[in-house]
């Protein structure tokens, strides 16, 4: 649909720049096949996946249920070994380590869970101390570090509360502090906000983003929600049935989704949509004397230009704006406008050609009488 939809071949954007820096996580042709018990066929959870994640980057990995996201997480923290290929974290080939060395290596990877997985028998401070106790850190040092971490996530006051006395957002803050306790290089978040309401989700994502800025930790965000990725990820990798189908800077993925699965995710997150009264009247074929409904995506250098006004003047067509929104993705403006214009083949062709000339994409959503 769009000549620019080649995200795999677009390395140039600012946000994808870190990909060329030293990779902290390197997945080389990783395949994971499960042989379920019984006589069922083997399941290929991940197929020939190659991905580099650079130091200090926030990478969103998005996929539908069963796409292989959790399997990928378990490979990155070495809880699962690939059937073939290599998993390299911070220069260590995790997939080849003996269990005892893998345990030590896991301390440089912090993990945040969807359901927090906090010990009910320990206070906030006690939970944060656990990974330090496991690593054999001296008691006095644990105390200082725990206080520091409580401050970092804004929970100093709640230090002696048990998880049952904390809100979901506060529990996840404890989860994040715990994950950071051993000063890991990598923070792995598996659906870390999926159990939270939208407002709390926003706060937790901002916290993760701030922590990345402050301590430079590399963040891998596993999610099935594009909104999460859109909020803080520098780069996105799309998983579909075990295959990595698309990677690219977050903005590019939104502006020019290449794969069908990516498009579905982008569409699901678009806040701009037709009113239902209009949608129900939508026809696939043009109607003489009727109108055409167009979606225009504004991105790149022209996102903030008064393009509609200019088009209207040059073509003499009157646009009727049905819905519009401009949001910022990866710090860049991204506009999404739905308009109706009086139908005539020539008008529509002219508009689409002009838009394409400006590097903007448009899509005919349908026609109304």
């Amino acid at each position, binding site marked *: 649909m769009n000549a620019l939809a080649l995200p795999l071949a677009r390395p140039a954007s600012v946000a994808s720049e870190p990909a060329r820096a030293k990779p902290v996580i390197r997945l080389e042709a990783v395949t994971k096949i499960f042989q379920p018990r019984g006589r069922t066929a083997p399941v290929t959870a991940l197929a020939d996946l190659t991905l580099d994640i650079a130091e200090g980057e926030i990478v969103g990995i998005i996929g539908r249920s069963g796409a292989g996201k959790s399997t990928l997480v378990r490979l990155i923290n070495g809880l699962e070994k690939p059937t073939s290929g290599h998993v390299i974290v911070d220069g260590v080939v995790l997939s080849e380590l003996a269990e005892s060395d893998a345990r030590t*290596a896991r301390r440089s990877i912090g993990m945040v*869970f969807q359901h927090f997985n906090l010990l009910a028998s320990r206070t906030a401070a006690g939970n944060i101390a656990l990974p330090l106790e496991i690593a054999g850190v001296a008691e006095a040092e644990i105390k200082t570090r725990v206080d520091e971490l409580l401050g970092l996530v804004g929970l100093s006051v709640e230090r002696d509360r048990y998880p049952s006395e904390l809100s979901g957002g506060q529990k996840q803050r404890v989860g994040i502090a715990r994950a950071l306790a051993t000063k890991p290089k990598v923070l792995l978040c598996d659906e870390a906000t999926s159990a939270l309401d939208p407002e709390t989700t926003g706060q937790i994502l901002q916290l993760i983003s701030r922590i990345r800025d402050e301590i430079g930790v590399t963040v891998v965000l596993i999610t099935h929600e594009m909104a999460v990725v859109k909020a803080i990820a520098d780069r996105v990798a799309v998983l579909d049935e075990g295959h990595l189908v698309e990677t690219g800077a977050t903005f590019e993925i939104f502006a020019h989704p290449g794969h069908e699965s990516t498009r579905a995710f982008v569409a699901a997150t678009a806040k701009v949509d037709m009113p239902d009264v209009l949608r129900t009247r939508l026809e696939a074929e043009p109607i003489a004397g009727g109108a055409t409904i167009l979606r225009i995506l504004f991105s790149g250098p022209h996102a903030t230009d008064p393009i509609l006004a200019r088009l209207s003047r040059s073509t003499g067509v009157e646009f009727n704006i049905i819905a519009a929104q401009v949001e910022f993705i990866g710090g860049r403006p991204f506009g999404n406008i739905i308009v109706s214009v009086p139908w005539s083949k020539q008008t529509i062709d002219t508009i689409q050609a002009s838009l394409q000339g400006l590097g903007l994409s448009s899509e005919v959503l349908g026609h109304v009488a």
Partner: protein
Amino acid sequence: MSPEIVYQLIFATGQTLYMVGVSALLGTLFGLPLGAFLATSKSGEILAAPAANAVIGAVVNATRSTPFIILVVAIIPFTRLIAGTSIGTSAAIVPLTIASAPFIARIVESSIREVDPGLIEAARAMGATPMQIVRKVLIPEALSSITLGLTLAVVSLISYSAMVGAVGGGGLGDLGIRYGYQRFMPDVMLVVVVSLIALVQSVQSAGDALARKLNRRARHG
């Protein structure tokens, strides 16, 4: 009741407390690690040793299905080996311990299996060894539930201890049989039964209170 009988009652209460207390302690000492092992050693679990799990599981089941009074008699040679004698209050501790350890092991096992598997996953992701997971995660998280189970075990030990009169173990139950039943002194029987009820009640209340204090899953003051 004669002062002699009152003295006997006090002495028998002491014997019961001694037998139940020591065997509960020893039973826990053996039962806790055994239960932790049973809960973590099936295939795919953190201390996977399916063969050992099956063998120990079978031994535990066999001990638990043997009626207590038969167990007492059957292990007399073993009791003599451990206690130096097969008769008396101290000797009675051996069969009581052997009966309670497997019971406690199963209680500990089921309490540990109740712990959210997500916590094991989290601890593994932190790089914890299987032993660290057992000590720092599973047992602390299961402690409230284990406490309730141990209360149950102590209560059944109190009832078992009434049977060790057969090997001269003494205690309240024995007193009840000898005076209350054989010498037909219903007032002694009544006092014995009331004492046992009071003992069970206080053990249960103490256990409940402790378990509630340890349970941090629910919100409370």
